């Protein structure tokens, strides 16, 4: 490990450094992910740009319309413990509580979890299912990107030269909507998900009014399970239909075989956990 450590004090300064050094620079927030990547020799930045000295990037707040905004430097632990989040977007607090160990959650940030763009990024499926977007800033100013389109491959995002993620924006959850995130992994929460499933569901009696399903760790990026959603959306729900949707989610997932699990096992578990997630969401 060997790099120059830069501590910009303003967002403009950070953007300018990232623009100048491009691929030679990496952003550090908590560092739990980046330092690991450097140690494992998966990345070798010449410059590490610490954004923790930028002002006002750590907050969880709701506006009058109920839209949630989360600063990029907000720790995973703050999300897990936020009473307001637990009350209004509990699925996100729940997903946060399943990310790594307490000592990692104390340091790791939401912005970092998303920008590292691991296919198993623990907060991604819940945020995608919630329809979240991210606000980024770059040399040309600010823009927002749908989170679903933010991930472009393992470790790859839609961030362009000089761009920095500032805020995660989540629309209000419509009344009567429930959400669940389930994580399947070895060693409890500590290891990354083998399969993660987020389900956001609104029911009218037995009919499924609206549904979003998002999967983690089973494709090159976190993904929506749109075919499974279509099977359930607007329909009267029975066991056979849930089974059909779970199978569809499994079919549209594209997992790989790695040290943690085989692709076949992951596909099977997508089916199982999609079923669990949907059932949990409708009984909650």
């Amino acid at each position, binding site marked *: 490990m060997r790099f120059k450590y830069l501590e910009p004090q303003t967002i403009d300064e950070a953007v300018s450094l990232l623009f100048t050094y491009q691929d030679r620079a990496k952003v550090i927030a908590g560092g739990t992910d980046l330092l*690991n990547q450097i140690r494992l020799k998966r990345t070798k930045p010449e410059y590490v740009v610490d954004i923790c000295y930028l002002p006002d990037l750590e907050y969880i707040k709701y506006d009058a319309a109920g839209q949630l905004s989360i600063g990029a430097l907000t720790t995973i632990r703050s999300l897990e413990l936020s009473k307001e989040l637990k009350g209004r977007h509990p699925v996100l607090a729940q997903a946060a509580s399943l990310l790594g160990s307490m000592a990692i959650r104390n340091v790791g940030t939401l912005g970092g979890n998303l920008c590292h763009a691991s296919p198993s990024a623990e907060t991604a499926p819940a945020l995608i299912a919630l329809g979240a977007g991210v606000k980024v800033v770059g040399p040309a100013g600010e823009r927002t990107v749908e989170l679903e389109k933010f991930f472009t491959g393992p470790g790859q995002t839609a961030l362009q030269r000089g761009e920095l993620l500032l805020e995660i924006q989540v629309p209000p959850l419509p009344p009567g909507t429930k959400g669940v995130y389930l994580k399947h992994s070895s060693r409890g929460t500590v290891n990354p998900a083998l399969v993660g499933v987020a389900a956001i569901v609104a029911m009218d009696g037995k009919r499924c009014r609206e549904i979003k399903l998002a999967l983690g760790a089973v494709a090159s990026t976190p993904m929506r399970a749109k075919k499974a959603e279509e099977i359930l959306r607007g329909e009267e729900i029975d066991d056979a239909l849930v089974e059909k949707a779970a199978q569809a989610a499994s079919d549209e997932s594209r997992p790989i075989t790695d040290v943690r699990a085989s692709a076949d096992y992951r596909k099977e578990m997508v089916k199982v956990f999609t079923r669990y997630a949907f059932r949990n969401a409708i009984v909650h």
Partner: protein
Amino acid sequence: MKQGITLKVNGIVEEVYIEPWWTLSRVLREELGLVGTKEGCGNGFCGSCTVLIDGKAVKSCLYLAMKARGKAIMTIEGLQGKDGGLHPLQEAFVEHFAVQCGYCTAGMIMAAKAMLDEGTDRSEEELRIGLGGNVCRCTGYAKIVEAISACAKEMGEGR
């Protein structure tokens, strides 16, 4: 190029000259001689390097020492009881034979301290979840959990 920084460790302000990529675990052990903090995996999975920063448990192997400037760092060496002797958690570990090879012990105790500082009313399951990031390769978990449970109970009763 090395640069001089000050770190507040166990209440003492220390001046160290470090490279910016040095982790806190390295600086604690190799610059300050505080070798109670162990480094096991170096990847944030084993928890033996756990220290407290501003009261929160942190894996010091994945934490740049530069980031610890201006913060209060506590290592196992900084723990003590009311009378200056062993901290109740350390006493409980001795009492309940919760130490085998000892490599995980400092990390276990610091993670447990962070948890009990937030509240002593903990079920065994909560304690086990809280210790999820700390590995004991002697597999001595039963004794460790016993020790922490007993200590939590005593602290809760204000003893």
